[in-house]
């Protein structure tokens, strides 16, 4: 009891103290920002455009959001792994296959690390990739339509976390497993984890023309946790680096048991060597079952193919391809500087950053200076590969990005700050607080050979008092800093949707000119497309009724339909006849058990409706398309199941 009384008293006192001090302090803090021209730096005048696109992962929203920098304005939420009633993604017949997996239809995920395609190590703005963490998947999103075009499931993986980072010419998008699991999956005791579970690192080839993804090979590694990864670039192009933790191979209470080793590893993979091995017929074709979902822009329809085989590679079969670099304290972030020389491991339970040198690594490998092995994989000597240590003074380093001017920026979760330091000298140049508990950070192009080092965005995990309170659940806060000078300058706070983990940014001039405005009706190859109003019809196939419907400002053709019966499955195939920028039409019908639709100009989308009640039921356009939007409606007459009313449809009769 005493303890409780005491705690309450202490707490009340603390609160009183804060009311006397804290508020005043906050006022002073914000007046500091007003002293400079920070407001002007983030102000984008009405009608003007932002300088950068920022793509923020949605975390538990399963999606990807598009923002402008420096304004922090949100432009779009792109549905990826989650059903999205706003547009009907994952509800319409065309898009449902996108969410198929070997576990059935999985209409949500946990999206983490977006990465923009590259050519010669520079952002090329063709596609952006993102990983589904929970049910392992990698998605490819077009950066001309800003729609998800492809999702491939990753077999032999669980907690697809060290993903989805691209190599220098987008040869591969790489996906590493966080959880090691039995490979192949089987029924076995969990406490036999050690030595039996394994971790897969998947190299997914990307077709240079269409972007289509295919798992080229999976390297089957020891049963550690593979946390994050980044490709080599420049001189280290051809290598890929993965942080590991739980090299103890603990299977329970990991927060204790996976922190017993002073050092875990960064796994260095010479993927070019493995690729060559596989091209020459190496590797084992292993039975598997995983979904490959592709959206075709001309048919506006996705299809699912279940793939039944994957090539696996035992790292011991490719000598000289895989090495371990000892790295202190359960390293989390794994980042490579723009020159490809430095590989940075951020030990999340540490105060310091460990920087390995690629040249040192190669010298150690060539000199065969090994410090033992783990499951046959050579371990290099820590001292031999180490380039330097950043003594930061911060706590809990997580992730590092680069400005292209020889500086690196690292986030510290526990001490809530971004620390700027110099590559090569490892000296700390500046540090600025974040609000609060920052995870990833993003500089546009900051993980490529050519960063655009004007801004850094800190993606925070904790919001607390940063905005007007909205109850217990809040959007996460982001802060944008000007990094064009020696010292970082906090410019602006803005909320972000879901839980942004990583983000990717790109200059607007690389994307905006090629953003698609509408789909050409003449190119529409959808099997149920209605290319002109005259082609509208209603067709019965047993219990299925297919309505070929067209829509244009401001009516549906047909607008009245009779002869539908209770128990029918009614397919509304709706083609938007508009050929103008930004004239979508919506479609909603009473009692639909799935969603409404949003149909872009030139596009066909299909909603299934299973009427359960006799009556005359309206449908209407949900997008305020025109001055006569409220007139844009129609009726379906639903008769009893045993009715013999013939199908008929009309407009203007």
């Amino acid at each position: 009891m005493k303890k409780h009384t005491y705690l309450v008293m202490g707490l009340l006192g603390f609160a009183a103290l804060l009311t006397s001090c804290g508020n005043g302090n906050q006022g002073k803090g914000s007046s500091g920002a007003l002293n400079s021209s920070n407001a002007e730096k983030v102000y984008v005048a009405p009608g003007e455009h932002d300088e950068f696109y920022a793509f923020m992962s949605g975390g538990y929203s399963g999606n990807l959001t598009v923002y402008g920098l420096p304004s922090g304005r949100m432009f779009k939420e792109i549905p990826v792994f989650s059903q999205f009633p706003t547009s009907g993604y994952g509800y319409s017949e065309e898009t449902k296959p996108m969410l198929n997996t070997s576990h059935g239809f999985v209409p949500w995920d946990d999206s983490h690390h977006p990465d923009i395609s590259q050519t010669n190590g520079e952002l090329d703005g063709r596609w952006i990739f993102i990983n589904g963490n929970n049910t392992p998947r990698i998605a490819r999103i077009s950066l001309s339509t800003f729609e998800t075009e492809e999702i491939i499931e990753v077999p032999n993986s669980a907690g697809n976390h060290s993903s989805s980072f691209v190599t220098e010419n987008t040869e591969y998008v790489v996906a590493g497993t966080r959880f090691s699991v039995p490979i192949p999956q089987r029924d076995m005791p969990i406490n036999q984890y050690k030595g039996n579970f394994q971790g897969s690192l998947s190299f997914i080839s990307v077709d240079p023309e269409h972007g289509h993804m295919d798992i080229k090979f999976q390297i089957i590694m020891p049963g550690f946790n593979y946390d994050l990864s980044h490709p080599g670039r420049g001189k280290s192009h051809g290598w890929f680096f993965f942080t590991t933790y739980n090299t103890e191979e603990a299977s329970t209470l990991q927060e204790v048991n996976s922190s017993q080793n002073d050092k875990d590893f960064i796994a260095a993979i010479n993927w070019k060597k493995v690729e060559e091995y596989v091209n020459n017929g190496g590797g084992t074709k292993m039975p598997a079952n995983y979904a490959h979902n592709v959206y075709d822009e001309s048919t506006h329809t996705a299809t699912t193919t279940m793939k039944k085989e994957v090539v696996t590679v035992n790292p011991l079969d490719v000598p000289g391809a895989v090495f371990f670099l000892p790295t202190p304290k359960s390293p989390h972030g794994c980042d490579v500087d723009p020159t490809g020389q430095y590989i940075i491991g951020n030990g999340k339970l540490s105060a310091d950053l460990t920087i390995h040198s690629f040249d040192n690594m190669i010298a150690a490998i060539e000199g065969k200076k090994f410090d033992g092995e783990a499951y046959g994989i050579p371990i290099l000597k820590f001292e031999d590969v180490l380039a330097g240590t950043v003594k930061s003074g911060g706590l809990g380093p997580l992730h590092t990005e680069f400005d292209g001017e020889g500086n690196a920026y690292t986030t510290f979760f526990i001490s809530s700050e971004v620390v700027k330091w110099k590559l090569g000298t490892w000296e700390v140049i500046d540090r600025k607080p974040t609000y609060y508990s920052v995870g990833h950070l993003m500089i546009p192009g900051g993980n490529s050979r050519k960063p655009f080092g004007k801004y850094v965005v800190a993606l925070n995990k904790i919001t607390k008092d940063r905005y007007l309170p909205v109850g217990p659940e809040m959007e996460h806060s982001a802060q944008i800093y000007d990094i064009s000078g020696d010292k970082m300058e906090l410019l602006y706070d803005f909320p972000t949707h879901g839980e942004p983990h990583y983000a990717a940014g790109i200059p607007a001039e690389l994307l905006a000119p090629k953003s698609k405005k509408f789909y050409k009706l003449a190119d529409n190859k959808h099997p149920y497309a209605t290319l002109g109003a005259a082609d509208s019809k209603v067709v019965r196939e047993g219990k299925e009724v297919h309505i070929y419907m067209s829509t244009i400002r401001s009516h549906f053709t047909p607008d009245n339909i009779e002869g539908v019966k209770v128990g029918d499955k009614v397919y509304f195939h709706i083609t938007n006849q508009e050929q103008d920028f930004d004239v979508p039409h919506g479609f909603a019908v009473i009692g639909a058990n799935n969603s409404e639709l949003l149909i872009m100009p030139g596009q066909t989308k299909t909603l299934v409706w299973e009427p359960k009640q006799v009556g005359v039921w309206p449908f209407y356009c949900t997008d305020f398309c025109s001055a006569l939007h409220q007139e844009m409606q129609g009726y379906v007459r639903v008769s009893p199941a045993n009715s013999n009313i013939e199908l008929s449809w009309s407009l203007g009769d």
Partner: protein
Amino acid sequence: MFPITNLKAFILSFLMLGAMFSCKNEANTATSPTQDKAGTEEIEKQGQAFIDDDGSTPNVLQIAIGSPDHTTLVAAVQAAELENALVNAGPLMVFAPTNEAFAALPEGTVEDLLKPENKAALANILKYHVTAGNYSKEFLMKFKKLGQANDQNVAVEVVREDVLVGGAKILASVPAGNGIVHVVDKVMLPPTE
């Protein structure tokens, strides 16, 4: 349990602490170097430590601030400007030496450490008292060592029912919103490398 004997004494010490706390920032602002003043102010006065939140379970910093037996520790945390590191999501396990434990250090040690020029050394010692984790005294018996926030390891020993961390005995434990505070009878001095 905390050896609190007298509520009046508690309130008095708390008030003194409060006065100390509110004065400290002003003093610091006045003496902080003029260069990069804006940045320094932000670091000192903003952050999770300064959020007005009287309803949540107290965090490890709030528990220390509220304890009359830890005024020295709190003063040290403030001098090292570690407030914001102690209020984050954690989990954090803080080994909190009592005033008596600080008093047992050689004479002048605490005064020296509180000097601005020794801020880094003080921060290093304080971080040696912090673990990323949240383990009860009983659970700590499973450990041989802990990795501390200053990047050094500290040994864990079990002597009969007692748990000693870096030679300091756990006297009492208070669960916090973002971890746990173990009150210890000694100041843990980090081994020199």
